[in-house]
């Protein structure tokens, strides 16, 4: 039986790297006495698969992993979540668990098609334009207007680093949605404790497919150069909202 678990990662635990999060969950599952299936051999290990790794320093409200339970194990969603959450450190919390068919297609990593993010900025690091949208020069308009103009482009060519080299890529097809937004005081307070952010932020839904994974930082960098904004890399704060699978997924259980 395969269970898909959705979890959040916030606060100081954003500094825990992907491999360590995997090891963390393996231990938590043992502590919670969840009947996880184990591989055969001299060093048995859990059969787990994590969806797209989240970089160190990023927070998320939509992370996923799949876990195989022992044959004959009974899955009770409430009980499963209660037991697992009792073992969570402050900053990681399991928000949902569903049973999914345990066929080969359901390997978390390969299934992810898109990811949504909110990108905000350290307070006072970016000089935002404040002119009215009527201004003809896009370089002087408000970010909200600049985003609209940016998205009307047919192609957005960027130099993208791949494992082997750098190549010119059109990232426009990979951007499903991109909008400027103003964070409310409540949303601002959701940032980790020692981080202060500007209300000016952006939301985006971008491709996360293997080979077509658009990093939110790259989109922001591309947008900044289009809009004539100076955005230092160290000012960027990334929060992953969620991960999405292809909608025509035959299993019916998308990542979400």
């Amino acid at each position: 039986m395969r269970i898909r678990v959705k979890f959040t990662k916030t606060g100081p635990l954003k500094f825990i790297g992907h491999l360590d999060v995997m090891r963390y969950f393996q231990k938590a599952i043992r502590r919670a006495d969840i009947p996880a299936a184990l591989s055969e051999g001299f060093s048995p290990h859990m059969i787990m698969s994590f969806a797209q790794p989240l970089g160190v320093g990023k927070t998320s409200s939509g992370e996923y992993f799949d876990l195989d339970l022992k044959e004959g194990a009974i899955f009770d969603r409430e009980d499963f979540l209660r037991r697992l959450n009792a073992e969570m450190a402050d900053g990681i919390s399991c928000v949902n668990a569903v049973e999914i068919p345990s066929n080969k297609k359901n390997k978390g990593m390969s299934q992810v098609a898109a990811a949504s993010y909110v990108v905000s900025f350290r307070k006072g690091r970016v000089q935002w334009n404040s002119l009215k949208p009527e201004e003809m020069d896009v370089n002087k308009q408000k970010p909200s207007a600049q985003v609209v103009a940016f998205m009307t482009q047919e192609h957005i060519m960027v130099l993208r680093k791949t494992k082997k080299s750098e190549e010119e890529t059109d990232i426009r097809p990979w951007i499903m949605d991109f909008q400027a937004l103003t964070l409310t005081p409540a949303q601002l307070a959701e940032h980790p404790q020692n981080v202060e952010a500007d209300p000016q932020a952006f939301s985006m839904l971008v491709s996360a497919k293997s080979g077509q994974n658009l990093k939110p930082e790259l989109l922001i960098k591309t947008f900044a150069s289009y809009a004539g904004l100076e955005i230092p890399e160290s000012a960027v704060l990334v929060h992953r909202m969620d991960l999405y699978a292809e909608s025509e997924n035959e299993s019916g259980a998308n990542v979400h």
Partner: protein
Amino acid sequence: MQKLALDDEILLSIEKPERYIGREVNSVVKNKADVSIRFAMCFPDVYEIGMSHLGIQILYDMFNRMDDVWCERVYSPWPDLDHIMRDRNIPLFALESQDPIRDFDFLGITIQYEMCYANILQILDLSQIPLHAEDRGEDDPIVIGGGPCTYNPEPIADFFDMFYIGEGETVYPQLFALYRKKKNGEISRREFLRQAAGIEGIYVPQFYQASYNEDGTLASFTRTDPTVPEKITKQIAMDLDSAPYPDKPVVPYIQATQDRVVLEIMRGCIRGCRFCQAGMIYRPQREKSAERMEQQAEKMLRSTGYDEISLSSLSSSDYSQLNELLTFLIEYCDAHGVNISLPSLRIDAFSLDVMNKVQDIKKSSLTFAAEAGSQRMRDVINKGITEDEIMNGALQAFRGGWNKVKFYFMLGLPGEHEEDVLEIAHLCERVAECYYDNIPKEKRNGKISITASSSFFVPKPFTPFQWAPMDRPEVYLDKAHSVKDEVRRQLNQKSIRYTYHDAWVSILEGVFARGDRRISRVIETAYRNGALFDAWTEYFDRERWEKAFASCGLDPYFYTARTRETDELLPWDFIDCGVSRKFLVREWERAKAGVTTPNCRAQCSGCGCRGYGGGICYENKS
């Protein structure tokens, strides 16, 4: 939730920020207002090394069981963060509360190896605590040292308010009770230190002074205050079953060097190897009951979620209930999908059978701590293993399917001749031949692979070799090269890989191990010139240390290469670690004569530890 001490952007700019954020599973957070004593426990090396240390986990648990004490942890910031903290004047902080160390009542530093001495100064410096105990004020934390290196605390004596000689389980309640008087303002810091010096096992260096002869040897070591004791007696826990042991060890996020549950099965060792300090200072050997450990194993595996457990002791094969314990563990771990990692066991039929059950033999290698190549040298060092035992163990292992063998040797042992050194190569060759002579081709699991490595012998205090000279580095290197050449002359040379350790790190270790108070100037000078993480080859800088010795007018070889007479006053003579000087002299003489001494279980050799009233000394002998 406590705020982090380091700014978000600093954490993102350094390697492995997880080292500095605390919040690990099973770490203890208390309310500051509810405790009267705040204790910062430090291992002066990087987080992953420090978190692997069992002693801190034991004391952390013991202190935090006390209602009015909150014990937290602190490790050496890696050089990347070290630079940032210095540049921006950020004080060193404890992991749990993220509060500055300088606001704590105690800073306890465990000193496990000599090469961390510069890191001790880094900890004090970054904490903004004066390096010298005599410069500290009423509000500075009490800096207390413990661990094996404190059996000769003199080279670092100036930096500590006190040392705890022995195992931490015994006198901390007394020390804390006295400290509350200081905290209430009843007594001053100096008076606290004076009275603390009266607690058994506590050494307060500032109440003692050393003077030197013209030839540089120690002339006298005396008290400056008549109320402090002349001798400091080692403290140990006699009943390990009732001694505190953590049910819930702290589980790091980052992979630590020791990433598993550690079950301590006994302390001390019956063997009496003459080079081994641990084998002397942790006497008498004391065992935990298998029953108690079975409970502990279960509790710790449940509370941590680790999928691996390992046994800790100096010589697990000598544990009298090993069979019972392993039978339980194999069954329990098999049912729960937990791996067992076995410590160095003597290679015999029993241990091979156990390893067969818990390891993939195709991947695992067998380790022989032979220590010396020739039987004569093994007798000199009292390493109770014979060539026959090695060959038999190897043969049985080969028959059981193993074909990877590791050997550990030392070079520079007292009384070592060229033929002893070359025997290292010959022994490796004989083991290789044993494989090809006895294992038929069709049963071989590939070629044999033998890895032999030599370290440079460093004489340690409270061992029979404490009077022995250490080789000069060029002599050691010559010996290592001869072994290497001799290996190349063997028939099976292609199956033997030989490596040897750096010479200079060992020389420094030798100086620190048997140094006196004057060495503290060298350590401070080297630290001021950038010495840090000397245990890490990429940071060790031989020249920096050579310059420090030169500028302090001290010769490192005075401390390492000189033969000490048995009537010389040694810097650590004021410590009573249980084994008597008479015993050590006797063992030194027997070593020179090449005579072995039986282990404690076979026959008592009157080392002096019977006075502790328990352990192996009182075990029913058959």
